[in-house]
Each structure stands twice: as structure tokens, then as C-alpha cells.
């Protein structure tokens, strides 16, 4: 007789497409066969997690065709099952998986589109944080970017691809050679939004995120573009409500 731990480990294999023998040995065979009974559970595990991924990556679903997405997601779920029960937190590894996944490797932009969708998902569920009001900048204090904010750089025009893949979009084609983007993705009040940044603004935000210091961020922006308009970089962050006080450690 197996211990509960062994039984559960055997169940995991049976659910995720491994050897179902250990789980099957612990199950009574009467009427419907053991394999068919285990398949009921496996079907729920795989389809419910695939459905969760479809909800998080709707543009990827449309780009590759829903049937292909379910095929890829099924493989992903077996290799990378969730590590926690909040399904809105599941899928961080899907972009890297898609980059390695042979059947979709020819879609070179796909992983970065998935990264954009993941950043939007993170933004939607990120903790709330009060934006810094402009007058507060007179006092030096450690700053941070809003917890919902992700900076994403891609050699592909992934924002254009995203817009062209919305259900209400027209039939305009996307010029994949239009060049890369620096994106800021974040939640503004209740809405998840993204916009392009200049390379200098991107460097400014990234340095601010790492150092919490406006002077260091300014240095980073000037190293990219010596004529960078620093006051406007700060004004944009304030207008985006994307600047917050760094939380106490």
C-alpha cells in the first residue's frame, strides 16, 4: 500500500501525461475502467488550465489559431504546471516556452506579443499604490514605478500587432519591418494601458526602477540621448500616475 504522498505523486503523473500506473493501481475497477475514470480528472486539469491561459493570452490565441493554441497550451501545462492556486498568476513562463516551441518558432514576434499580454495581466492584478503628487517631488524621497508597471523592449512592433489583433480591428496588415518598440505597460486607475517610450525615457524609467533615484535616472537618460528633455520625462510619469513612493522595505 502506498503512502498518501506516493499516491498524490502518482496522481500528478497521471494528470500531466506521465505514467498513470501508480495512480491506476490505487483505484478500484468497477463498471467504467480505471483509465477512463482517471481521464475524467485529467481532462478537467488540462482543459481548465488551458482555458485560464486563453483568458490571459487572447491575442496570442488569435494570432496562432485557437486550435493551435490549445495544442501548445496542453504541452505547456504538462511541462510547466502552476505553482500556486491563483490562476491570474499562471502563465509567466509561456512566452519563453513559445520561443522554444518548434511548431511556432517561425513566428518570431509571438513570444514578445505574449510578453506584452503577460505584462497587461500583471498590471490588471497588481497591488494598488497611490501616485506621487507633483508637489511631493520638492522633497527628496525614494521613488518607485507603480507596482503595475512593466517596461518591455522588442525588435517587433508588438503594440501595432496587438491593436491589429483586436476583435474590432479592420483588415490592415502589419509591417513587421516597421522597427522595434520600447513600451510601458501599466494600470491607470482601473484600466490597463500601454504606450511607446523613447529610448531615453525607457532608460530613465528603468534606472528609476533600479535605483529609486531621479538623479541616477537622469544620468541614464542623458547617456542614451544627451539632449533628453528631463523635465518632460518627469512630467509624463506624473501624468501617467506611474510614479509612487518606494514602499518601506
Amino acid at each position, binding site marked *: *500500500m502506498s*503512502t*498518501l*504522498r506516493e*499516491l*498524490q*505523486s502518482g*496522481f*500528478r503523473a497521471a*494528470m*500531466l501525461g506521465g505514467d498513470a500506473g501508480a495512480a491506476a493501481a*490505487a*483505484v*478500484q475497477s*468497477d*463498471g*467504467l*475502467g*480505471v483509465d*477512463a*475514470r*482517471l*481521464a*475524467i*480528472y485529467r481532462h*478537467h*486539469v488540462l482543459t*481548465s*488550465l488551458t482555458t*485560464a491561459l486563453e483568458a490571459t493570452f487572447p491575442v496570442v490565441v488569435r494570432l496562432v489559431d485557437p486550435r493551435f493554441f490549445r495544442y501548445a497550451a496542453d504541452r505547456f501545462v504538462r511541462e510547466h*504546471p*502552476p*505553482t*500556486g*492556486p*491563483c*490562476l*491570474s*498568476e499562471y502563465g509567466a513562463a509561456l512566452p519563453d516556452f513559445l520561443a522554444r516551441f518548434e511548431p511556432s518558432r517561425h513566428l518570431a514576434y509571438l513570444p514578445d506579443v505574449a510578453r506584452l499580454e503577460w505584462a497587461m495581466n500583471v498590471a*490588471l*492584478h*497588481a*497591488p*494598488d499604490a497611490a501616485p506621487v503628487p507633483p508637489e511631493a517631488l520638492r522633497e527628496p524621497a525614494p521613488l518607485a514605478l507603480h*507596482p*503595475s508597471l512593466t517596461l518591455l523592449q522588442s525588435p517587433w512592433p508588438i503594440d501595432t500587432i496587438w491593436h491589429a489583433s483586436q476583435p474590432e480591428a479592420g483588415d490592415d496588415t502589419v509591417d513587421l519591418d516597421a522597427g522595434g518598440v520600447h513600451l510601458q505597460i501599466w*494600470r491607470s486607475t*482601473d484600466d490597463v494601458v500601454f504606450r511607446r517610450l523613447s529610448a531615453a525615457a525607457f532608460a530613465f524609467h528603468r534606472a528609476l526602477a533600479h535605483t529609486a533615484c531621479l538623479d541616477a535616472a537622469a544620468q541614464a537618460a542623458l547617456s542614451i540621448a544627451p539632449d533628453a528633455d528631463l523635465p518632460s520625462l518627469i512630467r509624463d510619469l506624473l501624468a501617467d500616475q506611474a510614479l509612487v513612493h518606494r514602499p518601506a522595505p
Partner: protein
Amino acid sequence: MNSRVAGGAPNGSGIGLRSPHVDEIGSTRPDVGWLEVHAENYMGGGPGIRALERIRRDHPVSIHGVGLSLGSAEGLDDRHLERLAALVERLEPALVSEHLSWSVTGGAYLNHLLPLPYTLEPLALVSRHVDRVQQRLGRQVLIENPSSYLRFTDSPIPGSDFLIALARRTGCGLLFDVNNVYVSCRNLGGDAAAYLDAVDPAAVGEIHLAGHAVNEADGHTVLIDDHGSRVTQAVWDLYGHALTRFGPVPTLIEWDTDVPALAVLLEEAARAAAMLRIAEREGGDVHAA
């Protein structure tokens, strides 16, 4: 069937709060006794939890966890318990519930309420975990009977006895899912009414009702607890039996797949409320219409 005390005891029948209905419930404040949410959908920040905090001012809320994995041999996930505790503190729900099942092994969360063999080892394990959860939350939790599609070769304790023993050892209450009992008994052979009669009425703090799918597999009929349709007549009949035995216990309509218009859920809740009123008035036999 209405009670408008936020955080107060749930009264009558309620419905599971599903995202397509959030705006409508917030603006129309429908006449429904209470609302239940899945804990794991509200553990982040953002507009979801803020909308729920607004709704909570109009309706008592129940928190139904699906992710604690009380039957995991590798132990409870402390971080998840802390997140649940923070949510309970934030929402001050009328009820908190979880499942007699497991989902986590080897650090993987399998997103299903997987079955436990009913032997002494899992009974001791789940009891320890329920003790810890109740201690951390500082309140009683209700534990739900799962639906089953298989029976373990070594599982000598009847499911109802396992739950009763768990309630006795930990002081937890029971969330009695009538549809799950029906589905399990149809799938595995068993007398649903006898299962119900074995349960101590004093332990039952909540009832769940939901629809199920009827599938064919290898020439056998299998009922799948998919929460994707109206409650069937057979489950309403069993619910009448449950109310006759348990009295007017707060009852929830669950609907998770192919979620219909809010009005359909409210109709189902009204049907449960009518039966609850009979149970309350007559304190005797309740029959489904």
C-alpha cells in the same frame, strides 16, 4: 430572502458572484440574500477587489476557497494561507469555506479538487490542516464534500463518516453540496439520501446547489459536476430532503461554466428561497416544486 447587513449572517439563498455579472449586481442591487466568491480570484489588487468591496456594502459575502489543498501530504502552503487570511480580514465575510480534497503535490497546483482515500492517515492530516486554518483565521470554516468519479481500493471509511469525524475533531462546519452527493452516488453507486441522513444536522452551515452534465464514456453514464446548467429535478428533490433534515440552511446556486444571464441565477436562487421559507415556517417536510 434579503439581508443587507454587510458581514452579517447570510440569509436564505445566494448566488456565486461571477465576473460577467459584477457590474450589473453593483448597479441593480438585486434582491438576493448573499454572494459567494472564490478566494483565489481576489488575492491581487486592482479593479476586481475594489468592485467586490463596493458590492459587499449591499450584500453579505461568503469566501469559498478552492486552493488551500487541505489534503496535500506535503503540507499547507503558508504563503497561500496568509493571503487567504489577509482577504478574510479585508472582506469580513459571513462564511469561509474550503474543500475536502487536494490539488498540490511536488509544488505543482493541479487546479482540480482531487479525491482523497478515506483512511486514518488523510483524516489526521486534513484535521491538522483544518485546525491550522481555523487558528490562523480565528474562526470556523466550513468544509465541502467533493464530487467523485473513482473509488480507491483502500478507502474503508464512508465519505459521510469521514466528514463527520473531521467536524468532530476540528469543530469545523460542513458545506453540504447536494449536487456533489448526487453526482458521486450516481457515478460510484450509493444512496444519496442515506449519505445525507448520516450527516449531523448541527454541523451543516451552508448548502451548495449546481447543475451537472451527463456524459457517456465507454458505454457508461458519467455525471460531471461542471456547474454549467440549471439544478436538475433530482437534485432539487434531494435538496428538499436535505432541508427537511437540516432545517433552513443558507443555500448557494453555483454556476461556473457557460455562465448565463444574471436573471437565470436569480430564478434558481428564488426557487431555493421558496423551499427555504417552507423549511423555516413548517420545520417539517420540504418538497421540491
